[in-house]
């Protein structure tokens, strides 16, 4: 599988990152198998978080077995110094490892949160101490928030080494600043910050729960994903062709093999084909961008 430099981290990430939330929906044995399967394809970047149910615990055994082959991203939604330290300790324990390669501020949504994490008593102070102590190697940030907020974060956090944000043909087709994640991508590239794409496989929102109760949804994703192999491939190719360092796989384990296949076969997507895909979803009028802000 193709690899790309993750900004200035010195690590080359596989063009697909394994979204380890998928492990949450499997029993331990299935989780072990899925990790082996993902590694067989050459994926070397994993992404997990303490909020993904049991995913950290289920990743643990195979992560420890293959620790050298896996660049591990984890995150915290804590915004304070103390909270971040607590969650980092907890994640290290649950994963059963000594270090996390990339520790990310998870799901930044509001300006006040950026103020909080960058403040004296903020989460980043804890991240930096942890980095000095060798518990984490690199600092990142994830957000489905406004692109402006991520741009601000890129300005204000000097030691930021990766950003994770949504990018798909629906979002890319919107002109408003509110959807201008392409500007984030460009700015991150200028600053040599790694870029990780999420929501690449979002197809639309689920029908309202009175029409389709949550328990009857066929996929674990909180949006309706594209599910046909051709569509998955197109979506992967599109995201990877935008120039992201790596595209994070969707949260449902049923989709992972198709995404692996697409990632393994990736060899670019020409611009006319990218526009073709954007044009198609423009007519579908997919509601996904609205749903990003949840």
């Amino acid at each position, binding site marked *: 599988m193709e690899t790309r430099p993750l900004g200035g981290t010195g690590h080359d990430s596989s063009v697909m990152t394994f979204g380890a939330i998928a492990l949450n929906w499997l029993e331990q044995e299935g989780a072990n198998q899925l990790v082996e399967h993902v590694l067989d394809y050459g994926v070397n970047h994993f992404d997990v978080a303490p909020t993904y149910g049991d995913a950290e615990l289920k990743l643990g055994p195979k992560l420890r077995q293959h620790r050298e082959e896996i660049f591990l991203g984890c995150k915290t939604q804590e915004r304070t110094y103390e909270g971040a330290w607590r969650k980092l300790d907890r994640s290290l324990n649950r994963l059963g490892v000594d270090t996390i390669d990339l520790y990310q501020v998870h799901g930044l949504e509001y300006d006040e949160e950026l103020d909080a994490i960058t403040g004296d008593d903020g989460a980043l102070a804890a991240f930096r101490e942890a980095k000095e102590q060798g518990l984490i190697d690199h600092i990142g940030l994830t957000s489905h928030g406004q692109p402006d907020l991520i741009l601000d974060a890129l300005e204000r956090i000097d030691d930021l080494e990766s950003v994770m944000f949504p990018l798909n043909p629906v979002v890319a*087709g*919107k*002109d*408003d600043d509110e959807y201008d994640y392409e500007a984030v991508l460009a700015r991150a590239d200028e600053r040599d910050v790694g870029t990780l794409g999420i929501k690449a496989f979002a197809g639309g929102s689920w029908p309202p729960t009175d029409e389709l109760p949550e328990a009857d949804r066929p996929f674990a994703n909180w949006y309706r994903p594209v599910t046909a192999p051709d569509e998955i491939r197109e979506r992967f190719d599109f995201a990877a062709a935008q120039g992201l360092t790596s595209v994070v796989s969707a949260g449902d384990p049923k989709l992972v093999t198709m995404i692996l296949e697409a990632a393994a076969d990736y060899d670019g997507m*020409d*611009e*006319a*084909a990218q*526009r*073709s*895909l*954007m*044009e*198609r979803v*423009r*007519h*579908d009028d997919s509601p996904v961008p609205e749903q990003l802000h949840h």
Partner: protein
Amino acid sequence: MDVPRTVATALEDQPVAGTRCLEAGAGAGNATAGLLANGAARVYAVTDDRDHARTTRRRVGGGNGGGDDGDRLAVLEADLRAVPLPDESVEFVTAHGLCNVLDPASLSAVAEELSRVAAPGARLVVDDYDPVPDGAAIGELFAVENAASELARGRPALTFYPSSFLRRFFAGHGWEFERERTLLEPVPWTESHVAAHADLAAETAAEHPGEAGDALAATARRLEGEIGSESVGRMYSLAFRLPG
């Protein structure tokens, strides 16, 4: 509104800013939006369809978003075979998805008019579709639509001109060819496109009462269901310049 990437791509290497533009065949207002977004001084968006004129005004001229766009936009309901503008009065002309709805006779008449209203040194951007490849399912639906149109009106509804044809054709009207690019490949004919073409075919067939019309309408409906959507073919963009 969002400017479709096709339009943005067709215009990105063109000096639109500050020019007086003619958007020939306003349709959904997409190219109109692109011209305004690229800083056109004024856009005359011409269509012979009242609904399209209204749609263009609403989507592009209407307050939400670009507040001043209304002032730079004039939507004219008129026939492009007799454009209601003086000679040499515009510096930029777009025909985005227009030629395929013009039969050869209309295309000739429209091209005369575009050349007449264009000032020396003016630019022309023509975006359209190559003929649908053999074997494409959507081709059958277009065939039915054309058959219905031939029966009811004595002319085809759709003519897909190869880019090489339009290139030479406009050259014959005095336009110097500058460049060609591919806008879409494949072209996504979505369910809503397919449904719209099936509707048109059925409506046109109904203008020709009798067995043949009924059969064509039924075939259009059947094809709509069978095709669903299809991605096939190519959309291209040609840019020209008038000498002077």
